[in-house]
């Protein structure tokens, strides 16, 4: 589908088309000092002019009148918060005279449209699809939500110092998997659709306003926008006065990490790690969960609640009488090696997209790229 121009001042029309087509529209907004995903009714609620400065343990918003609508990057929320909500009741049971009866109502999730999804988070979506839908047993509630999801992606033209999507091969240009993608240029967005649903939305939009097509030169310039950023990230050229940009050497990373499970660095990082689980909560791919039973006073009505779990908590590895990972070192090692090594065995992909959230939201600024680099620099056994 060819690219067309949508003027910034017409963004409301896109929101309206999505709403008219029955979507609950979610978009980035400034709240509580961060850019977070919220219900979006009005284009003026978008974080136009806001830039996020991110570094280890640091997230700060700054207003810049020159900045565009999507020049912030990723905040603490990702698609995970919607497709794999932190808590949900997934089953209900009733005790009847004829025995236990499952009474779970038929599940009809909302039709969500999420605006502002970046390359890293689109890759995270594909990764979570493999986790929840790729096996012999699937999460049917995730599936129901996923099938109704509409994604409006954004090609990044600015990165935070914590971003390393270029190392992980999933940004800053958005990969396939979106319905609509936007690239911001001046006071316009180049808008394109890849799916039937995306094409239908653009058709509705074209019925409301004129969407001039891009010339061939304009298309080339638009494609160059994330490419220019990728080159800058690759060259690790920081913007003036900003922190050192990250990158991660992924060569043979699976064997490097599994060959270094006894590396002294795990104990060293454990001295800094608070085992707070923030990194797993903000991670767009972490999928651990456990189930709690909720009963009424009689015990006859039961709901089962699935909630996020984290390998940084003792409960995660609790067995009767013993804990498999009683130390912070063992729990940090589980997190990092699962993300970057075990995931490759399990799902044929890294579990890391380079979004950098775990670096930003770590209260003490532990940096996954630094920890891997430290092990790579001085491996206890060389990977074969």
């Amino acid at each position: 589908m060819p690219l067309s121009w949508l003027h910034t001042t017409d963004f409301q029309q896109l929101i309206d088309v999505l709403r008219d087509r029955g979507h609950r529209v979610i978009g980035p907004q400034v709240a509580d000092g961060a850019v977070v995903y919220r219900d979006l009714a009005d284009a003026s609620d978008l974080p136009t002019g806001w830039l996020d400065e991110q570094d280890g343990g640091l997230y700060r918003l700054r207003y810049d009148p020159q900045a565009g609508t999507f020049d912030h990057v990723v905040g603490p929320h990702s698609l995970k918060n919607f497709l794999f909500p932190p808590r949900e009741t997934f089953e209900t049971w009733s005790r009847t005279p004829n025995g236990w009866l499952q009474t779970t109502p038929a599940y009809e999730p909302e039709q969500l449209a999420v605006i502002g999804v970046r390359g890293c988070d689109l890759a995270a979506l594909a990764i979570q699809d493999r986790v929840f839908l790729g096996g012999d047993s699937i999460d049917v509630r995730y599936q129901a939500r996923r099938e109704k999801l509409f994604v409006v992606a954004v090609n990044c033209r600015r990165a935070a110092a914590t971003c390393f999507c270029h190392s992980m091969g999933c940004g800053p240009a958005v990969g396939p998997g979106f319905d609509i993608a936007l690239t911001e240029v001046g006071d316009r967005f180049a808008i394109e659709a890849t799916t039937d649903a995306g094409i239908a939305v653009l058709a509705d939009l074209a019925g409301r306003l004129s969407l001039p097509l891009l010339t061939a030169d304009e298309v080339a310039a638009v494609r160059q926008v994330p490419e220019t950023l990728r080159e800058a990230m690759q060259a690790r050229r920081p913007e003036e006065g900003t922190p050192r940009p990250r990158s991660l050497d992924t060569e043979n990373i699976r064997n490097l990490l599994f060959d270094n499970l006894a590396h002294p660095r795990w104990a060293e990082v454990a001295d800094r790690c608070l085992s707070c689980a923030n990194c797993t909560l903000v991670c767009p791919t972490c999928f651990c969960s456990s189930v709690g039973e909720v009963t009424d006073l009689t015990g006859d009505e039961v709901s089962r609640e699935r909630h996020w779990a984290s390998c940084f908590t003792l409960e995660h590895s609790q067995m009767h009488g013993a804990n498999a990972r009683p130390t912070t070192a063992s729990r940090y090692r589980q997190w990092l090696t699962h993300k970057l090594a075990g995931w490759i065995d399990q799902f044929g992909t890294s579990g890391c997209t380079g979004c950098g959230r775990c670096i930003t939201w770590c209260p003490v600024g532990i940096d996954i790229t630094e920890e891997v680099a430290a092990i790579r620099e001085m491996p206890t056994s060389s990977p074969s």
Partner: protein
Amino acid sequence: MTAPPRIESPPRPCIHTPAPEPLAVGRDAWHHHVTRIVAARDEVAGVRTYDLAFRDPAAAASYTFAPGQFNMLYLPGIGEAAISISSDPLKRASVGHTVKAVGNVTHALERLGVGDEVVLRGPFGTAWPLDELQGRDVLIVTGGVGLASVRAAILQIIAARHDYGRVSVLFGAKTPAGLIYASEYDAWRAAGIDVRLTVDEADGDWTGRVGLVTALFDDLDLDAAATGLTCCGPEPMMLAVVRRASAAGIPSAAMYVSMERNMSCAARLCGLCQFGPEFICRDGPVFSYDRLAKFLDIKHL
């Protein structure tokens, strides 16, 4: 020893492709069957076997399992626990589970009796490699309730006894009062299984061996190259057994262990049961020792 699997890291580390259409073909991970306890018997103090029969005849007809696999037993309002299937896979009227009461779910099970309902999901996981072991000597080494997981295998071997060489069961318990299935040993022996017992601490009446289960190896006349080992018990015990078996010359490729970890989904969705790159619920619980060797040596993995 054969090398543990090595996997090349993909040059492009993150997949960047949309999900295939249709999105999913798997079945609901929480798919369950309601069962009724049709028999419950005390094995030893604190350990009971529950035979469960399906409420739905279609489920009863279609449910099959292989020895080594486990079910998730769910008591609404209380919780779920992973329990190995301990009954004879050929006896299809009910499915047996031998449970040691240690916590929430397992104590609640203890309060139930014949006629009460238990919700069951399963079977899950990998099985003991009984086909591969055909024609070989089989050494089954277990400790505590670990015997539950291999009881189904013992019964299957007895049903096709001529398919196997010499079969020995080495079983260790803390005390003589912990020897589960004691009333069955004579029948197993009569069926051509060599059953050897040991306890950590003897009491007044015990005239058998005292000591670790590994010490029972000393009494065996092993044809190491022709022997396959299956082992289920606490991790330190399994490590000691594997070392002792290696010293006796059993090839590590012929050793199998059954692992235990915290579990919630049993369907490789919840992440709790991970052990290195493995999901114990899907890739295990039964693993070839070779596959895990590298990871079993790591503390707190």
